[in-house]
């Protein structure tokens, strides 16, 4: 291929790249199709439940005027953390020039993209009037910026999505063109995305932290705690994804990046536990009316104990996970490490999902106790969004496999030569 030919116009080659990406993303062995079919089925169940919720109203959820946010906003908050957690691969790769991490850093960015897509979906399904979504678009609607923290969140989440889409898209497009990526077209964006990752979770914490009428949330500890737990759940998920890629995509990934992530989690999981202890101490030692929510969460309040088993499960999971992560076996034995990842991921999903959102509403601002349990519709929609997020991630990972493999079997590149046929991707 001549160099001159390489300098073709992007308006021709970019659509070709997209077509190629779609072809690569939809080719795979039987297991891949089975996985995608299952995810599609779950996503469709969610879509159907959402359609019913839109038509019949949110009476189909378990939410009330007392507990006016539930499972959707809990998952939204958690997924913002997973999205931000991807930065724990970007920082070693770009700031500390960890070469092995640099080779797989696109993984963190793709997880961030999928997680943000899920965040946006979780917020959308929580809207009573999704048909008025356009009121939120700056210029078109009436964007209450900078007063409403929700407008800040709309901005930071969408910009974070665009930053990561740009970086991944650019790197993959260059792969397609068989050109080395030019640093100036992506490194500045990566550096901005590091700061931005912190911002998305800080702003999301500010959504709750800024409400004076909700003492459970109105704590300066919330944002730092959000970040600490994000830097547990995000890396835990990334480690699990790397093991899955080894197992199911046959990728020969180096263990360096996994070890780096484990070393990060060893610190962040302890910081997170320390903050839980600090919060519990502050709530219970002084006592008083503002303790009621924490009492509901940890001990039950006036006979209502809906979250008590959940929060103690979360704490047990996080403590056990911390022990496993800190044990030397975590670096040697895969089952130990995977168990630690799963336990901490689930533990934080409970703790900063339902464990954070629901006690903010119980007791209510007039100190009434109305409990909340998600309805079947909420579980279906939530499962559907998780399935869709995993679909986005799977497809994105398939396109990025050549980069992750770091070898010459460049199925993504135009006119692939190294492989016998375009379908021979493993």
């Amino acid at each position: 291929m001549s160099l001159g030919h390489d300098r073709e116009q992007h308006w021709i080659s970019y659509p070709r790249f997209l077509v190629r990406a779609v072809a690569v993303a939809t080719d795979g062995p039987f297991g891949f199709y089975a996985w995608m079919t299952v995810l599609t089925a779950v996503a469709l169940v969610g879509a159907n439940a959402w359609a019913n919720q839109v038509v019949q109203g949110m009476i189909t959820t378990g939410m009330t005027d007392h507990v006016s946010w539930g499972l959707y906003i809990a998952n939204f908050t958690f997924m913002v953390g997973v999205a931000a957690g991807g930065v724990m691969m970007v920082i070693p790769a770009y700031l500390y020039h960890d070469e092995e991490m640099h080779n797989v850093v696109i993984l963190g960015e793709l997880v961030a993209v999928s997680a943000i897509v899920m965040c946006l979906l979780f917020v959308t399904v929580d809207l009573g009037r999704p048909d008025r979504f356009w009121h939120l678009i700056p210029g078109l609607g009436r964007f209450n910026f900078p007063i409403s923290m929700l407008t800040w969140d709309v901005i930071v989440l969408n910009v974070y999505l665009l930053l990561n889409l740009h970086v991944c898209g650019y790197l993959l497009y260059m792969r397609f063109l068989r050109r080395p990526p030019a640093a100036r077209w992506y490194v500045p964006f990566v550096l901005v995305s590091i700061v931005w990752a912190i911002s998305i979770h800080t702003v999301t914490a500010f959504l709750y932290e800024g409400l004076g009428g909700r003492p459970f949330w109105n704590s300066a500890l919330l944002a730092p705690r959000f970040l600490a737990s994000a830097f547990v759940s995000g890396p835990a998920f990334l480690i699990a994804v790397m093991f899955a890629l080894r197992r199911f995509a046959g990728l020969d990934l180096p263990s360096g990046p996994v070890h780096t992530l484990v070393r990060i989690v060893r610190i962040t999981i302890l910081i997170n536990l320390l903050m839980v202890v600090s919060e519990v101490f502050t709530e219970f030692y002084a006592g008083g009316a503002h303790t009621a929510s924490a009492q509901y969460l940890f001990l039950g309040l006036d006979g209502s104990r809906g979250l008590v088993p959940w929060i103690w499960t979360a704490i047990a999971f996080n403590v056990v996970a911390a022990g496993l992560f800190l044990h030397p076996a975590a670096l040697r034995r895969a089952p130990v490490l995977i168990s630690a990842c799963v336990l901490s991921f689930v533990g934080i999903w409970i703790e900063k999902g339902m464990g954070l959102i629901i006690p903010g509403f119980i007791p209510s601002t007039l100190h009434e106790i109305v409990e909340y349990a998600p309805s079947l519709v909420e579980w279906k929609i939530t499962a559907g969004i998780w399935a869709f997020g995993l679909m986005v991630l799977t497809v994105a990972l398939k396109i990025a496999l050549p980069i992750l493999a770091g070898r010459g079997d460049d199925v993504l590149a135009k006119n692939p030569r190294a492989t016998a046929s375009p379908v021979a991707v493993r």
Partner: protein
Amino acid sequence: MSEMPTGSSDVQRRTVLKGLGATLGAAAFATAVAPLRDLPNRLSAAELMQKHYKELDEDDKRTILNRLEDEAARDYGVRPEIRDQPPRSGTKFAYAVNLSVCSGNGKCVEACHRENNHDRATNQSYIRVLEMPKGSMDMGRGNTTYRHGVPAEDKFYMPVQCQQCDEPPCTDVCPVQATWKEPDGIVVVDYNWCIGCRYCEAACPYHARRFNWKKPEIPADEVNPVQGYLSNRIRPQGVVEKCHFCLHRTREGRLPACLEACPTGARVFGNLLDPASDIRWILENKRVFVLKEELGTKPSFFYFFDK
């Protein structure tokens, strides 16, 4: 790729299969979201494209009020008269409740329910009455679901509704400016602009806001046909609403429905800027207090004991 005929036909077979899969997937998706097909009948293009209240001119308002009356007639069997009552200059509304005489009879709650066309199925109202033990201001010891003769011994009663704060946290958090404070002090919602995110409901320290979890049900003979755009017109499904000091009445010189219904005379309503008003007399002569003063919300709703 002419040198790989087998590979090429394999590619074609794959492409056909992928096409089939995509078609099946699209068909399954269309089936999954089929319940939405009912929406165009319920959601007109005019409603979808309606501008924010503050961007409407008089012509727009006339058209919209007409459309809303048509919709109400279609859905509820009664054609209401929906008007847009503007705030009057030189007016700042305030409310005070005498906790020494409030007996917890709940007439205000019922009156609000009827006046404001609340959903019958959920028995909605903008007012909640807390039954509190004498000697305590701890709402944690209050009870809103008492079902016995009132007033009970050793109890006092505290009705709570929107406090029409001068520093309302609910309007600050709204991402689309669907709720704001009017010049006469009333915090209102444009029910046709609210996106239903319920951030205001989380932000309000007084449990003053309500969400329409479903389309309100009201029998035709119970609909209050005297309605205001920013007040008691029947709300759409999926939006937030709140107490508006009955602005469709009070901006025309009448009293709020909850006050008219109160048999004890506990409620005092008026214009703070009018030195001769009852509310001014109360504020100047009684030792009034506001709820959760420490939050800095500056309520226009006051409480006092007078014996």
